[in-house]
């Protein structure tokens, strides 16, 4: 079951809002479809992202994919542990495998993202 304390994109990223900041990662479904993750390319801290813009790249078996930003915001931290242990995304996609922390731009509204129930329904219809 997807955690109910965050919201989800159609491209299978999650956004966990905490005040004017929040964490981003990819979902359990996404990591299971990707298979063994061997590398994660992380953005520079300070980079400002638009909603839907690629914030990083995840490499799995012979496949390289963009991770898209669920909201517009500035990168204020990256999960440095992923540089040496990209498999954390496979093992713990909602916790230790988070990818970046963003500070939302003020006018950003995450209301267009799916809640957990809607995301579950979306995945089941996938």
């Amino acid at each position, binding site marked *: 079951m997807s955690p109910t304390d965050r919201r989800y994109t159609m491209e299978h990223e999650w956004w966990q809002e905490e005040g004017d900041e929040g964490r981003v990662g990819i979902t359990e479904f996404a990591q299971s*479809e*990707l298979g063994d993750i061997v590398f994660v390319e992380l953005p520079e801290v300070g980079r400002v992202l638009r909603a839907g813009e690629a914030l990083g790249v995840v490499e*799995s078996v012979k*496949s390289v994919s963009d991770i898209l930003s669920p909201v517009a915001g500035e990168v204020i931290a990256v999960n440095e542990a992923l540089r040496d242990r990209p498999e954390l995304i496979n093992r713990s996609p909602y916790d230790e495998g988070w990818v970046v922390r963003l500070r939302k731009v003020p006018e950003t509204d995450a209301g267009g993202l799916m809640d957990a129930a809607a995301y579950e329904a979306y995945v089941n219809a*996938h």
Partner: protein
Amino acid sequence: MRLRLITLDRRAAPRRFALGPALPESVALTVGAGGMAALVVSENDPHVLLGPRDRRLPGIERGIAWLRSQELPVLERIGGGSAVLLDEGCVSFAVAVPCSDLTRARENFAELTGGVLRALGELGIAARVGATAGAFCDGPYDVKVGGRKLVGVAQAIRRGFALVSGMVLVSQDPWTSTGIVQGFYERAGSLERLRPEAVTSVARELGRPVTAAEVAQALVRGYAETAQLVASSPDPAEWDEAERILARRRVG
């Protein structure tokens, strides 16, 4: 499905032919921006394509310097996987479709390599999808025959497109290609041990000489069974973008 068909062979102007390794990515950017899905089939001059994970090898600079000493240009590919040698003895193919969903990778591999299996079948080779332990750039979506790698396949899902691309080994000598890749890995500090016996070619399987042009034509016919192909050429902006991509992806 409708696919814009772009072919690049040695009849092209040398300046254009040299852009072959970057053309699929350039065309894919058009697809990601809303353009028609596309198939690019091209012949190759010798070069080595490295995968993203190769960049992280401890002796990568030494490995690249050795490849350059063999007079091989070195490029980094957009898709996954690891090092391969491309040359006159292989044909590249690439299918670009609109896609932003990273969970589509498996389906894309299955759907977008159907034309390759049909092409090989038409040539008289009953191939199937699967990994081949010991082959260079081995992966579960490669195409093999009799337990030997015949086609390598990789994928990128970037900037609104999925690009499934690969190489059919037409007449490339497995001992030469494996030796080059192994030589690179030994100098780059990888423990990878490759076996030339795990690799084959269309010519070896058919027991007769086969040209890259013959396989390129078979690929087009194979894809024509799975999609409606619309003959096309890159537009000037796509050539310009290919030039920029080539400069960006060249290493060493």
